[in-house]
């Protein structure tokens, strides 16, 4: 959402070339993410998970209503280059460029993220912190830096996603972040919160299940597709709380 609004603001009011605007949008998302981490999440991080969850709920309400307050409750048009509207013919079917770009971008991002997590010092520190935070700190890894880095990375990813998400409708509204949030949430829970493979598998499983539900559900029940999806989420959590792909050090969630 932040990315989208930055694009709207910059593309609407500045003569910058489009690519620069996109980069700035991603940066804006990253800085928002970093800023909320420092101001809102860091003080409650050591308190409890419940406090963290309530805080994130508050932050998302804050951002949404902030946009409502400062910009407008109505949808705003975002200028995008032509490439997002055109299609190409591949093997007799017309494929929008947008989809091709989305697939390519996700492949690139996934590769980069995997490399980052597996090959760099930051990546190792991040994974160590996820496995055992206290131990990681004892070994001299600066905790705040690591967590900030995690937030920055997720901000960058969210910013990139926002470009493609907004390209679908070429408008931005305060509530635009909600549907992708739910998808990301479901996919992460299904796949497993502690591994990158899990997130990817989760994404595919989500897409496959939602499409299968679309095909096989009787028309009367088709509208309830999302409800079935969330029932599935609950079942996954009940029987495999660690997700489909679990890391070796998943914490106990039952009890």
């Amino acid at each position: 959402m932040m990315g989208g609004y930055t694009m709207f603001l910059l593309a609407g009011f500045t003569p910058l070339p489009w690519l620069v605007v996109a980069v700035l949008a991603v940066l804006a998302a990253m800085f928002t993410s970093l800023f909320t981490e420092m101001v809102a999440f860091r003080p409650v991080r050591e308190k409890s998970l419940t406090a963290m969850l309530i805080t994130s709920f508050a932050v998302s309400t804050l951002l949404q209503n902030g946009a409502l307050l400062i910009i407008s409750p109505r949808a705003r048009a975002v200028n995008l280059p032509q490439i997002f509207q055109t299609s190409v013919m591949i093997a007799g079917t017309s494929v929008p460029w947008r989809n091709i770009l989305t697939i390519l971008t996700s492949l690139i991002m996934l590769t980069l993220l995997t490399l980052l997590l597996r090959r760099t010092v930051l990546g190792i520190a991040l994974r160590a912190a996820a496995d055992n935070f206290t131990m990681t700190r004892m070994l001299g890894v600066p905790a705040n830096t690591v967590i900030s880095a995690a937030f920055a990375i997720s901000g960058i990813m969210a910013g990139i996603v926002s470009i493609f998400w907004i390209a679908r409708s070429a408008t931005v509204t305060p509530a635009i972040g909600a549907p992708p949030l739910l998808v990301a949430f479901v996919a992460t829970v299904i796949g497993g919160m502690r591994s990158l493979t899990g997130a990817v598998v989760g994404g595919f499983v989500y897409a496959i299940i939602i499409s299968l539900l679309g095909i096989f559900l009787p028309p009367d029940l088709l509208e309830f597709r999302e409800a079935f999806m969330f029932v599935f989420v609950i079942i996954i959590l009940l029987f495999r709380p660690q997700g489909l792909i679990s890391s070796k050090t998943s914490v106990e969630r039952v009890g």
Partner: protein
Amino acid sequence: MNLIARLKPFNTPLSLVSVILLIAVLTELLGISLLTRIVTVMFVSIILVLGLQLYMGNSGILSFSHIGFMGIGAYTSVLLSMTPTAKELTNSNLYPFLIPLHLPFLPSLLIGALVAAIIAALVGYPLMRLSDAAAVITTFALLVIINVVMVHWDRVTNGPRTLFGVDNYTTLWTSLIFCLITIFAVFLFKESRVGLRLRATRDDAYAAASIGINMMVMRWLAFIASAFIAGVGGALWAHFITSFTPYSFYLTETFVILAMLVIGGPYSVSGAVIGTLVVTAAREVLRAIENYVNILQIFPEGFFGFTEVVLAIVLIVILIYRPTGLIGSQEIRWPFRRRKAGSSEPSHSINQIS
């Protein structure tokens, strides 16, 4: 034993009840219709916040599904209390067997709450074994499921469209009476055997299990009771607002109720009540400012969302600096005085429940 001594254990609920009664009497004496509306909604909010406190405060687990049960209570009671002609008028697609059902207000309300409780009992049992993030995510999933069903089951709920034609049964005094009953009920639950055991599992799950407390059953009972109270709140709210959509029972309302509880203090009955009073007052002031700015037309696009922004900031500040809320974990007692540090009751803070 004289009367005063007998009433001593009930000091907290009696103090809270007198505050609420005082507000009700003052409101009635002033007789301003806007104020009466605000106070009526506030009493209903107290019921909802207390319902959430009953589960969250005693079990230490955050629940997002509460407002979903409020919606179930609202729709069920409304379908029972509306006249057949009003039903046909508002939703021509209604199941035929639902149309002739017509009950007085009180049975409708109780059946609505009961349906919410039964649904909570059925879906809640398997969820009770989860804790931590998994527990929160499942209740969130439950809220989404309830919302999707309400939005799309148009033969019952009129779908995403507004359901109108509900008779206004909830007055200041009906909401007051239910509010007072709820205060006592939630307090008694906290002090009951189940409440005490549940709080033991919250403070130390393993120690509680070692003395033979069945955590799942304790949580489950609290979850059902909480859903019942949410159903009562929903039914009262529906018969006051008289026209609503399924989106009235979703994230916005969840945020407000949660903010009231967390700001007041999730670990005490007093916190829930005081939080609701404070947040309601603050919201009305902020909304008045919002309206005033809109009338002045300083902003060409209108001035919306200010109330929520301030509320979210306050919520974050409270979580950082006072994680047990304004009241903390101790109940208020009359006469109000600060207790010495190291009093008999240990204070549990949000910190210790990880």
